[in-house]
């Protein structure tokens, strides 16, 4: 065990362990792991470009006050449940669920048993299990096409508050559902931390789309660990749009376990100031006859930094796979930076795969052309940035979510729509 006091996990010292015990075996392993866990440094390959040292400067606390000065919503037509710092805000939550959808709160749950996918020997997964604030299990029944989207809103509020939250989703055979996750911060929230965990099972022939909007603030920490298993003939689509945040890390892990699946990953990150956003994605093709399609785009200004690390595995038995992956970035200033690493690891021989990464600046010729038509330099730049991210935004099938995203981008960057 290391005696180096800088490396130990200090930021959790004030936290109370959770009473929630959804997978006792796993929780015990997490607790054991945390006893002598250390903060990963940039020498650790998985954290090479994301410095976590800042976390240890904050002594996080839990806070059960759920009052908010305003409400948060993305799709006004959705069935909405709101959590503040990981605690259910009853007054901001709909009681009536759409037909075929059942939701169980993890706090106080006696009936449901879960076999979790979380790795208890990974720091943030372990912290999440050990200090779980609350969580929900969303179950969509067989053959139900849920017309109303389910929207789970998380709001950070106060100072130095941590939310450890877990969402478990199971979409049964032949079901179809759109789930929205919105992450926000109340005005004045300072140094808060959303340690988020998501586990999804997409069963045979089910279609699940997840729209994830990250719109916290420039001081917020956000770490997401997302584990998705897809069974045969299923479709999973995730749109991850990071509009605001201080230090953001998304670990998205998709295992394609059944044949004839379709997997779509779309994301944008639009950063200014000193924001840092790190997307680590894994698509693991274990079986044949599947396709995956990944497109992430980033726009970075000021001293912001982005990281994209996308891995696609095509295992030995996974023939006839079509896998596409692309990451494109625009740097708006000399001091912004991106580390982009798309990786394909292919062990099968009859596959169609491609990957690519580009980083550039706005096209000066195009800006000049637009200026000669009377458009100011700022508007010209905004038109080009918008055009650049539009290719990703147009994949949001839920019209209300797309409009929300576009109008927030408009508020934040004054982009002409």
């Amino acid at each position, binding site marked *: 065990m290391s005696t180096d006091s800088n490396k130990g996990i200090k930021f959790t010292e004030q936290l109370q362990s959770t009473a929630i015990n959804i997978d006792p075996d796993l929780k015990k392993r997490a607790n054991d792991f945390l006893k002598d866990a250390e903060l990963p440094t940039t020498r650790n390959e998985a954290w090479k470009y994301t410095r976590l040292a800042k976390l240890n400067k904050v002594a996080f606390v839990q806070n059960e006050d759920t009052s908010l000065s305003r409400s948060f919503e993305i799709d006004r037509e959705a069935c909405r449940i709101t959590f503040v710092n990981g605690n259910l805000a009853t007054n901001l939550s709909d009681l009536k669920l759409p037909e075929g959808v059942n939701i169980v709160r993890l706090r106080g749950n006696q009936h449901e048993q879960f076999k979790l996918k979380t790795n208890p020997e990974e720091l943030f997964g372990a912290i999440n299990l050990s200090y779980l604030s609350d969580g929900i299990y969303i179950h969509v029944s067989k053959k139900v096409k849920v017309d109303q989207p389910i929207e789970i809103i998380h709001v950070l509020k106060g100072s130095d508050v941590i939310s450890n939250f877990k969402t478990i989703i199971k979409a049964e055979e032949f079901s179809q559902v759109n789930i929205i996750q919105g992450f926000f911060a109340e005005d004045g929230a300072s140094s808060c931390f959303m340690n988020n965990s998501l586990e999804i099972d997409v069963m045979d022939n089910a279609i699940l789309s997840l729209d994830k909007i990250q719109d916290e603030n420039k001081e917020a920490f956000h770490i997401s660990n997302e584990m998705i298993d897809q069974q045969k003939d299923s479709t999973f689509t995730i749109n991850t749009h990071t509009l605001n945040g201080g230090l953001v890390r998304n670990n998205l892990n998709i295992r394609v376990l059944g044949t004839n699946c379709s997997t779509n990953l779309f994301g944008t990150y639009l950063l200014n100031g000193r924001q840092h956003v790190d997307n680590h994605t894994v698509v693991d093709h274990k079986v044949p006859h599947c396709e995956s399609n990944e497109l992430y785009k980033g726009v970075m200004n000021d001293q912001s930094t982005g990281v994209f690390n996308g891995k696609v595995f095509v295992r030995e038995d996974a023939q006839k796979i079509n896998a596409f992956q692309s990451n494109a970035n625009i740097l708006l200033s000399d001091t912004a930076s991106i580390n982009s690493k798309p990786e394909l690891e292919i062990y099968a021989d009859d596959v169609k795969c491609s990957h690519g990464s580009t980083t550039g600046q706005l*096209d000066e*010729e*195009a800006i*000049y*052309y*637009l*200026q*000669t*038509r*009377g*458009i*100011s*330099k700022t*508007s010209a730049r905004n*038109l*080009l940035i*918008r*055009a*650049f991210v*539009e*290719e990703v935004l147009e994949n949001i099938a839920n019209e209300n979510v797309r409009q929300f995203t576009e109008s927030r981008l408009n508020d934040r960057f004054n982009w*002409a729509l």
Partner: protein
Amino acid sequence: MIKIQNLHASVEGKEILRGLDLEIKAGEIHAIMGPNGSGKSTLASVLAGREDYEITEGSVEFDGQDLLDMDTEERAREGLFLAFQYPVEIPGVSNINFLRTALNEKREYLGQEAMSAKDFMAMVREKSALVELDPKLASRSVNEGFSGGEKKRNEIFQMAMLEPKLAILDETDSGLDIDALRIVANGVNTLKSKDNATIVITHYQRLLDYIVPDYVHVLFDGKIVKTGPKELALELEEKGYDWIKEELAQ
């Protein structure tokens, strides 16, 4: 309308315009011809406000104001328009979207109210019909995947939408077939009024059959070296530029 006096401009330390004089009055059409590399596009770029060029001497007065003192977008809002020799493609930015932004920024600059969506669309229909531009092209990304001729027509469509006081057409005729040429010329002639003026840069007298200039200028080595009536264009096409070089040598 515009008065250019003793204009000198360089790029990367190389002097391209070397004392150019030109005056154009409202209602006039001027043609500028000249060999490759003589500085025709450079003149157009300098007037439009491209930053790559350094103005070392001279002045340009546009409608009583100092043109060289204005930003590119300000010049456009004051009524200057350049139809590019090589229009750029801008993937993802729709023609219509950007034109609406351009029109409204111009109107705001001039203290006018923004145009309603309905009036704007009516204008798009009218002006695209004028240059026989397929309405589908009007809503596509700016010039992306357009043929050479479609790009040129799109330039004239934009000109029609922006209703400039002074339009500079830089080799808008190059690469056009005879039908497209007639359409483009028709657009220019329809938009012509006693209050606006046009500079037509071309290598071919053919265009000047359709857009009849009041004056033809020869630009050579960064200067206007000869000015004449429209017949000068015919003479240049027949005899080339050598006789002008000889005249100059004397």
